[in-house]
């Protein structure tokens, strides 16, 4: 492997791992805040017990999300020095804002929430979990703004061959950012809701308190159905925008080598990849790709070959086609997993109507295993986005191979890669063990009538 490959593998590895914990944090923080709000408003004990129960699961993940987030920030300087040097004045700005506006908020108020149960008035304490939820969602906004700039650079001028920020507003109104951020928020809600549903389902299957966990399963489903629908709708619009600014990304996602109009969408293909321009496409749905990529029934999608010759003219000789195999299957994995989540959620909603949610053992079994779906879906989505930008690190401005730290040695890259694999492997395992264990815990005991107004004990280390 070359240094560029190693640096890419390392970045992909730490980012994918980090993004297991981000959406679950954003989603569960929001759901926990909802539960606590329900408790403060209704004073019903089961909401408090659910808040504490799911709050514990939240904290287990926040711990890893926060510490792996530091790695993300350091990665740019450690392995992508030339990239950082070139675009730091643009890319660094949202990162610094993220720290100042979001990380401080999230971390400080998480401490207040955990340890402040018996110190703060109830309503103030409720605000602290909302601050955590808001902070976690806000941090995603800044990092998405930075990432979207790499997909579609805006708000800069070239000075001596270097991009210089000249319009911060443009960075935060970048259409790729606006739609990408909406998609991440909805996907995070999906992730949090699916996990809450899975945990509730496991509890209902294994004799957990039926009434209480039916309540949390219902809350999860009520959030989940619109969230997954919006994830798909927003994702569709994002596809149209990316097709405009990054046509290679979308053409590669359909392995579309020649220009087509109208374009059909294949459910599967055999073969394919960058060396095989004539894969066998199976079950083609007419017009669907035109709709996905352009929002028009008869929209045109420019093929990879014409794009390649256009890019060669524009940027000089080189190979500008991303990895078609990854694009094609990442797109499908994301979409099909999304459909699965949608089906499960609609099934659940239907069972709620029939008042059979707690007793349908088949559904509960499916819902438990459904917990893995959003994580695979999110990962596939990032593959689609990031691999589809290649060979660029910043679309049209800098190639990935020119972005690494030129004097970091191959040995160093190997050592750091192996270190992160070992570290994250261990942490991931510990996190999983704890998640499984605490998902199977009993609810905290109900409080007696006379206790209802007494302070709730703090969560201590």
């Amino acid at each position, binding site marked *: 492997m070359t240094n560029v490959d190693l640096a890419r593998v390392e970045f992909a590895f730490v980012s994918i791992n980090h993004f297991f914990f981000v959406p679950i944090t954003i989603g569960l923080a929001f759901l926990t805040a909802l539960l606590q709000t329900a408790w403060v408003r209704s004073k019903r004990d089961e909401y408090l017990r659910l808040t504490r129960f799911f709050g514990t699961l939240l904290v287990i993940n926040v711990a890893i999300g926060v510490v792996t987030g530091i*790695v993300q*920030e350091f990665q740019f300087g450690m*392995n992508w020095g030339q990239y950082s040097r070139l675009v730091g004045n*643009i890319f660094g700005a949202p990162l610094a*804002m993220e720290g100042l506006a979001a990380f401080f908020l999230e971390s*400080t108020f998480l401490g207040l929430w*955990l340890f402040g149960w018996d110190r703060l008035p109830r309503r103030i304490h409720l605000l602290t979990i909302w601050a955590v939820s808001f902070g976690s969602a806000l941090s995603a906004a800044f990092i998405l703004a930075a990432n979207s700039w790499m997909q579609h650079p805006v708000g800069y001028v070239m000075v001596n061959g270097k991009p210089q920020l000249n319009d911060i507003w443009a960075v935060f109104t970048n259409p790729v950012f606006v739609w990408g951020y909406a998609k991440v928020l909805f996907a995070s809600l999906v992730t949090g809701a699916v996990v809450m549903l899975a945990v509730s389902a496991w509890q209902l299957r294994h004799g957990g308190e039926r009434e209480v966990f039916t309540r949390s399963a219902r809350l999860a489903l009520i959030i989940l159905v619109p969230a997954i629908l919006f994830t798909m709708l927003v994702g569709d619009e994002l596809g149209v925008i990316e097709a405009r600014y990054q046509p290679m990304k979308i053409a590669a996602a359909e392995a579309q080598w020649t220009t087509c109009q109208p374009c059909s969408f294949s459910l599967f293909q055999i073969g394919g990849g960058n060396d095989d321009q004539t894969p066998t496409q199976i079950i083609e749905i007419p017009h669907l790709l035109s709709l996905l990529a352009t929002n028009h029934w008869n929209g045109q999608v420019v093929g990879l070959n014409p794009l390649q010759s256009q890019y060669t003219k524009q940027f000089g000789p080189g190979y500008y086609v991303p990895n078609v195999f990854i694009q094609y299957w990442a797109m499908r994995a994301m979409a099909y997993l999304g459909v699965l989540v949608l089906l499960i959620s609609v099934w659940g909603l239907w069972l709620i109507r029939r008042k059979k949610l707690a007793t349908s053992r088949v559904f509960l079994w499916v819902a438990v295993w459904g917990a893995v779906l959003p994580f695979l879906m999110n990962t596939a989505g990032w593959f689609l986005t990031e691999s589809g930008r290649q060979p660029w690190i910043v679309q049209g401005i800098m190639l990935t191979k020119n972005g690494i730290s030129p004097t970091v040695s191959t040995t160093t890259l190997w*050592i750091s890669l192996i270190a992160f694999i070992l570290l994250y492997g261990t942490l991931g395992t510990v996190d999983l063990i704890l998640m499984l264990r605490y998902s199977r815990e009993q609810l905290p005991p109900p409080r007696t009538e006379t206790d209802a107004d007494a302070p709730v004990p703090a969560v201590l*280390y």
Partner: protein
Amino acid sequence: MGNLIPFWYIIIAVLWTGFFILEGFDFGVGMLHAVIGTDEAGRRAAINTIGPLWDGNEVWLIVAGAAMFAAFPGWYATMFSAYNLALVLLLASLIVRGVAFEYRGKRDAARWRRTWDVLLTAGSLLAPLLIGVALAGLLHGLPINSAQNFTGSFWDLLQPYALFTGITLVLICLLHGATFLCLKTTGDMRERSWRVARRVAPFTGAAVIGFIIWTHVTASSAFFLNVIELLAILAVIAAVWLVYDHREGFAFAATTVTIAACIISIFVDLYPNVMVSSTSKADNLTVHNTASGGYSLKVMTVVVIILLPVVLAYQTWTYYVFRRRVSRQEFQPPASSVPDGVPPKPVTNPEVGPTTTSGH
């Protein structure tokens, strides 16, 4: 516009200083928690003195790094590439340490807790050591070529001055943490914190004086110390004296000034360089040849002027909310048999009066 470059250098110095003032005692408590807490209840009490605070404190480091990225991309790129492996180690320390806080109480098994205790102690010791080595390297000089790229290896980082700075920072964090624990614990734990503080203080004092002189000789041709360097020496002498005089509030204030003055002296002596090149003076990285464009700095200035006071306000409020001392009795009998570590009813603490609980 030109004024924003020094302004951002100051902001970055402030962020690093803020990080060390706050996370400094967290590191100290992390290193000492098993010394001050001789049993499980004691260790938990020690950890819970910083429980609600450490995470927010650590963000100062993240923001310091991000601010360097945004305001001085050249500095960030060269420094982080040069320190690659050291940063891997630093990240590993910060990670295991951060996770240890959350996870050590999540299983009721002696071996599980002991493992996390060891990791917490080791992480809390390694982190300031490595950051000290890193900051000292900026000043002492590293092989950097004319393209602003580091040309040395991991071993180039381990110069005597850098190692001494790392050890000095560890010793300051130990004393800072010990005086913090004096302020935040009760009974026998408080007594033990005093004993530890008294034992550490002379070493910290000697190390800080040595570090300041070494820094001065490395960076400056002037004979006399500058104001900040002088302040660091006076503060550490005061800290030692106040520790022996048993004045906990003032002792903590003195260690705070010591740690702040030490970090600031590095930045004062470094300016206007940000990384000294040991290859050639012409290749030094300076605030000017690494800074972002004027527009970026302007945007960031507006953001920091609005947000930093807000952050300071709510972090101060957090410290106020959790001002109470933590006593070992709150953690006895071990609450681990109850899920989620629900403690028994708050105990009235004879030394600070009844604990205030406002539950409505």
